Every structure is written in C-alpha cells, then in structure tokens.
C-alpha cells in the first residue's frame, strides 16, 4: 500500500471539497486524513489530503487537476509501506 500527502489549492467555490473527495474515492484512493482552510482575502482554499492506495498517485493528481475549480495539486510525500 502506498501512502501519499497532497496539497491542493482551489478556488473557494461551491462543493469543491465534495468534488475532490468524490474523485478520490472513485479513483481508488482511501482517505487517511484531511486538513482544509480558506484564505478569506484571496478566496483560495488549501486542502492537505492524506491518501493511500495501490495505485500510482499520478492517476489521482491528473483527475483532481481536471476539476474546474482546482488551481494546483502537489504531491508532498510519497511512501510505500
């Protein structure tokens, strides 16, 4: 099982967090943890997502990147247990 930490920057729009969670589940990643906050000045949200899966993280990064309100996605940590 691979463990990953992602940092996602997104416009603070309706259901953006739900969209990220739906895509994460559907694409075969289990969520171990999540931290989310919004900068009220810029209206940009930062979501740190801890996920695990047998699948390559690029499969999830590419799918999250396709969501309309996402600004950027970074893989901060990648560990194979």
């Amino acid at each position, binding site marked *: 099982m691979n463990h990953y930490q992602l940092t996602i920057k997104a416009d603070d729009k309706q*259901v953006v967090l*739900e*969209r990220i969670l*739906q895509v994460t589940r559907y694409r075969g990643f289990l969520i171990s943890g999540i931290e989310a906050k919004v900068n009220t000045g810029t209206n940009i949200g930062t979501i740190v997502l801890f996920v695990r899966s047998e699948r390559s993280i*690029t499969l999830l990064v*590419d*799918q999250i990147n396709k969501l*309309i309100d996402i600004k950027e996605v970074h893989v901060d940590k990648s560990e194979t247990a």
Partner: protein
Amino acid sequence: MASDKPQTGGSLLFNVLQQHGVQHVFGYPGGAIMPIYDALYDSDVNHYLCRHEQGAAFSAVGYARASGDVGVCLATSGPGATNLITGLADALADSIPVVAITGQVPTSAMGSDAFQEIDIFGLSLACTKHSFQVTDINDLEKVLHKAFAIALEGRQGPVLVDIPKDIQLAQVPTDSEHFSPLKNKVKLPPADVVAAKALLTAAKQPILYVGGGVGMANAVDELREFARATGLPSVSTLKGLGALDPNCDNYLGMLGMHGTKASNLAVQECDLLVVVGARFDDRVTGKLDEFAPNAKVIHFDIDTAEINKRRNADAAILGDLKINLPDLAAELTIGDWQAKCQQMKADCAWDYNHPGDTIFAPAVLNEISNKMPENTCVTTDVGQHQMWAAQHMAFNDPSNFLTSGGMGTMGFGLPAAIGAQISRPHDCVIAVTGDGSFMMNVQELSTIKRFQVPVKIVLIDNAKLGMVRQWQDLFFDGRLSETDLSDNPDFIMLATAFDIKAKQITKKSEVTAAIEEMLDHNGPYLLQLKIDALDNVWPLVPPNTANDKMMEST
C-alpha cells in the same frame, strides 16, 4: 409573442442560450421550472416537448453529436432532475457537450425536504464534467456563459445548472457582467514529437488505433491525411467509427470485443500503436496485460489523465489533434506489413451467405448501409443490434454514427435520433434498435408524432434481450434468466397508434422491398424485422481474454 415584462432570471436564460447560438432545446416542464417555461413562451428558442426527461437528455446528446453544437435540455426539480441523470452520465462517458438546466425549489425552501426537492447539485458530481447551483441572481448570467464554455473546452462533457425558482423569477440587474472565455487551466507538457517520430519511423508493423476523440476534435480531415501520408494500417473503436475512410484498403474495421478478426489479429501482432483520441477501454483491449503485447505506444489525446491510465505511453502528444497530427506525418516503408494486413482483411471478410429464409440482421444492415442516402445519420441502442450495426454498416463521419459507447445505455437510440433529426433536418436519420432497448424510451414515439420527426426506425426483433441471452448461453450454462421478451407488444399496432407508418417482415425475400419502402417514405417509419432468437454476434472475445483468442461460433 412580444412582452413588456422586465427581464427575469428565466428570460435571461433564453437570452444567453441565443447568444450561444442555441435554437433548439429539449425538455419537460414542472412546478419548480415554471418561470423558465413562462419565459420560453416569449422566446424564439424552439422547445421540443419530450415525454420523459431521460428522452430530453438523450435528444440533447443526439443533437450535440450530430451537429457538433452544445445540446440543451431542461427539467424541473426532484424527479425531473433525477430523470436527466442517465443522459448526463451517458454524455460524460462519451464526452458530449450538453448543458442541462434544472429547476429547483426556492432558496428559502432548500434543505427542508420540500415537495419535489432533491439535491441534484450533489447528485451531479459523479455524472457531469461540472455543475453549478445559482443562489444569487447576480451570478446567473456569468454561470450560464461558463456552463457553455466548460461543456466545450478541452475534453467536452455535460454541465448542469440548477436554478431555484426564486432566482428564475428575480429581476436581472441591468449592469450585468460580460463574460470572458475561460483559459485552459491545465498546462500541457511539451509534446514528445521527436520521440514519437523516432518510434514511428523505426516501426516495422505499426497500427493506427483511432477513437472518438477525432470526431470531438473535428479532426477527421487531419486524421485521414495522416493515415494517407503514413499508409498505416488502421483500426477504430466503436465511437471512432466514421473517422477513417471505410473504403481505404488499409482500414481493417473495428477492434475489440466484437471487432473484426483482421483488426484484432493485426493489433496483437503490431510493434507500434499510434493511438489517436482513444483510451484503451476494456471493451477494446480485452485482457489488458495481453493487449498488443509487443507494441510501443504513441498516444495523442486532449486529456492528460488518459495518458498512462491503462497503458503506458512511450511518447505522449497532448493537445489539439488538428495541430498535432500533421506534425507526426511521415512517409514509411511498411509495404510488407500493409500487404499482410490487407491479406488478413481479405481472408476475414464478412460472409453474408446465410442458409434458410429467416432474416439475417447483418445482411439487412449492410444492405441498408449500401442503400441509405449519403450523409445519413444512424443511431443505435445497445445490444446485439448495436454491434451488428457497428460491424456491417459504413460511415463517412463520426457524426453519422451515434451510439452509447462508454455508458452502453439501452434507450439511447430513439431519442438520440430525434435530436439528430432536429439538428439536421435535411439528412436521413435511422434509429437501429432492438426490441428490448426500444421499449426503454418508447414514449418518445409521441415526440415523433407531435413534431412529425421523419426518423426511420429499424427494429431488430428477436423477442429477447439478445446480448444477455447470448452470454447466458455461452458463459452461464444456458440458464436463460429473465431474457425472454416473447410477450412484447404488437409493435406495428403501437407505431400506428402514434400515426407512424409501420411494417413487419419475417422473410429474407421481403427485405429489399421493405428497405426501399422505408427509405422512400417521407415521414417517420418503423420497420420491424423478425429474426431468429438464437442468432449471435460474432466474433466475440470472451471477457478477460486476449483479443486474438476470439470465438467465431459456438
């Protein structure tokens, strides 16, 4: 009818639709969308009343696919909205640009389990490219423009806009914001053109594998020029049919589960796959680990997420096919491979000789294909008839073959044909369907009647859910669970009830005259072909099996 009413959210919707060139919409009214239907009353947009919201969604899909424009459908809240979902899922799976407008209960009632309230915004997450819920009249115009832009940009898809009733009724501010087109957010990596060209020129046995992305990119001419310049033997996915010239010597037909023997054998033997707007779908690859086992891959796509998703690419070329395909064109020395593929094609040609006087559906579809007017648009439902149409009919453009590829939705064919016919009133439109699929959206016969849509319906009737029955016979020990439809209604009487001319034939000797009568008829027409219930679709690659291990008979 002129009106002095102030502009409301409802009337703004139709103004925006007209700004985007929308002339025709498909829908069904209801309580929470009544202000929009009231505004429609004053609008120049033509509304086609379908008899079920799923029919409206599929008509919008058919309209979009046949015309290349965005298809638009309308539905009320609650059940109206949920009835759209299958159509939206279908549009998502096949990357079809559709904008769906749903009415919603007033904002003050939202979240209170109000009458006909459902969280369609939440439900839309898994079946749309994007969705909006408008809770401020000041946002409506911008959101509607964005919906069209998102539906069309990059990899196309469906967008839903949920509009509460009070927003539909609200007066629109006069200083509305002008819309600026979206910029593609995803920065595409540089194309591997040099690497791809090296792979292409080094290949001894390359294959061009073409998918639905070519039609979506409006790149048929560029693809055909690329195929001509390189001389690559070529194969097509179900959704790619029509992109390649069906009369080209190097074209081997459809690949995959019900693909031609020549296509599947050539792909298994090739040393390079040039993949254009295709995504290694499981119905194409069979057992993925054994698909084209010796091939390197050059992958053209608009969607970054398709690269390396199911098969790694040795070179990836992301972006607009119209621009990228010509960059890879090269003259190749592959005469021996071309000759081998052409010989396989000749050796595996379809055989339309069929014993007895029972109607043989593949031969009928091939005869219709040969006789139908140029630029005829064919839609299908899902099942055996769909695969026979894909195998035995020829199409000169992807917009002339509309079938539910990714989602495989029974009930698609009839409403999609209505949408196609409305978008292309001067072209012949034929819906090829089966007796199971036909009944899934049979209420749309009423739409045909109301608008005198001259769709020709070819109903291939084996009184079975034929494809499921075939699999039960082949893979479930002949245990025919719930696939008998021998209590179907009298289809001729049914069509006649909607003032649609109809004819049933049961013998081969009746086929030619019946096809000619159908094609010569000016209005809608239903031709019912009774076929043998045990006819199967061949070849068939069994599930999780390599494509060269296909079954050709029982």
